[in-house]
């Protein structure tokens, strides 16, 4: 059989080269995307005060480290390769150096992109915007009641004393110690509404591995959902009104008398 040699035209060459390039880009792109999806999954990370929700924060942070430089306590680190955290983004480890909650919050206004958002740590007072570190929500402290010695009945209020939002973010609950019959338990309880996640409690905890530790809100907290309402709490009950698409069921009251309803038939008809 005679084969005719097809000359490779310029057009054909161009199309082939383009197809190769697109194919290789797709290959490289998939590997690259896969790597990024893995790399950005670091849910236990604690961000500086005023950080936007993690997803937004990750896309906005330009990795300049100006927050890290601004921190007077060297609390913040910029994630290095090998830290197994999204590279170049700021984080802190409270057990090493917690956030000391500076009232002027130097780390936030220096952020050039707004990944650390002043609005999230500011209050309006007399028409003036003022930075308020107690609004920070870096995470929430969680107590492991099995390793907390206060739950053994030993008096330890290290975390309670260390808390910068004392008696509000952490308060002590007194309970009778049934074992001795004459002592009290002084139990540390965290109030998630007031806890900033600064980690001074974690730093202060006396146990070998801290029994109180800060975790991001998404990790530490559950979510009740909209179907459970405290019926005895008028404030909580108002949540019903806020829920769209959840109309209260109104069953029309029967106009018949009960005996008529029973005698009218239909109940036992087959």
């Amino acid at each position, binding site marked *: 059989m005679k084969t005719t040699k097809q000359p490779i035209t310029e057009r054909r060459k161009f199309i082939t080269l383009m197809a190769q390039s697109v194919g290789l*880009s797709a290959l490289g*792109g998939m590997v690259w995307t896969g790597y990024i999806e893995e790399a950005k999954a670091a849910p236990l990370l604690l961000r500086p005060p005023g950080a936007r929700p993690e997803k937004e924060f*990750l896309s906005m942070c330009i990795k*300049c480290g*100006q927050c890290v430089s601004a921190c007077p306590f060297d609390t913040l*680190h910029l994630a290095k*390769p090998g830290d197994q955290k*999204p590279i170049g983004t700021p984080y802190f480890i409270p057990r090493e150096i917690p956030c000391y909650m500076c009232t002027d919050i130097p780390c936030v206004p220096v952020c*050039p*992109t707004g990944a650390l958002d002043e609005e999230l740590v500011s209050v309006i007072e007399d028409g003036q915007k003022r930075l308020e570190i107690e609004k920070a929500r870096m995470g929430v402290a969680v107590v492991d009641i099995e390793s907390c010695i206060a739950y053994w009945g030993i008096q330890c209020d290290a975390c309670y004393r260390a808390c910068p939002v004392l008696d509000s973010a952490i308060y002590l609950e007194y309970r009778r110690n049934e074992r001795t019959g004459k002592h009290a338990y002084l139990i540390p309880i965290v109030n998630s509404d007031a806890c900033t996640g600064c980690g001074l409690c974690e730093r202060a905890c006396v146990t070998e591995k801290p029994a109180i530790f800060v975790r991001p809100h998404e990790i530490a907290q559950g979510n009740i959902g909209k179907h459970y309402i405290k019926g005895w709490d008028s404030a909580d009950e108002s949540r019903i009104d806020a829920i769209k698409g959840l109309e209260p069921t109104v069953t029309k009251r029967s106009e018949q008398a009960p005996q008529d309803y029973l005698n009218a038939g239909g109940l036992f008809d087959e």
Partner: protein
Amino acid sequence: MSKILKYRFLIARRFTQLLILGLYIAAHVYGVKILEGNLSSSLFLGTIPLADPFALLQIFATGAVVTMDVIVGAVIIALFYAVIGGRAFCAWVCPVNMVTDLANWLRRKLALDKVERKVWLGRNVRYWVLGLTFVISAITGLAAFEIVSPIGILQRGVVFGMGMGGAAVLSIFFFDLFAVKNGWCGHVCPLGGFYATIGKYSLIRVQHDQPSCTLCMRCKEICPEKPVLGIIGKHSGAITMGECINCGRCIEVCEDNALSFGVRSYIKQHG
């Protein structure tokens, strides 16, 4: 003295590269606030914001809305290279340039150039990577190049701590030394591709005086972006390709005064 003159641009480039890193370190470690931050975004003299326009475009690609500071900073930098510097970032600022230059120097000393390996890697790969960067940024919601960039790893590492970043830098070094000549900066790096694109019409250009040229080809030997020197020995004029990083090595090695820096509109074309 003549030796210094012979390496005047090389010395000046190492000086600016190290000076910029030094200023960042001074600000972070010693609180000398002349230039704060790093190459991604910084604050000059406590007032003027500067930012990496490529990083910002990636952030835009993720769909994020950012504050004005970083936008102003990125516009300042982009305008500087678009109007004046061309692709000078790569030769005068980027710290990876020092790594790849060292690899390239070793390549020449060890005569690795003489035995050519056949590795297929086009110089246009960087533009594909550049395009891919934006696509992946949009898909993952993360500035895609910034999270893998060896430039970022090196320059952040020098200021804020290296960690395992040395491995990334070493990879680039070995890639350039053993795999492809000018492999990273001249073929792959999308930031180089980005600056080549926006700096194409900048004012500062290398100019060639054809009548003085003796065709020794030392310039082509030293040039990390060899294709830009296409006009050597053919006609006078400016090196107009955006890929030229304005490093000035060709000017230094030229012993016939056939090459020099010039301003675009004053360079006589095709003389």
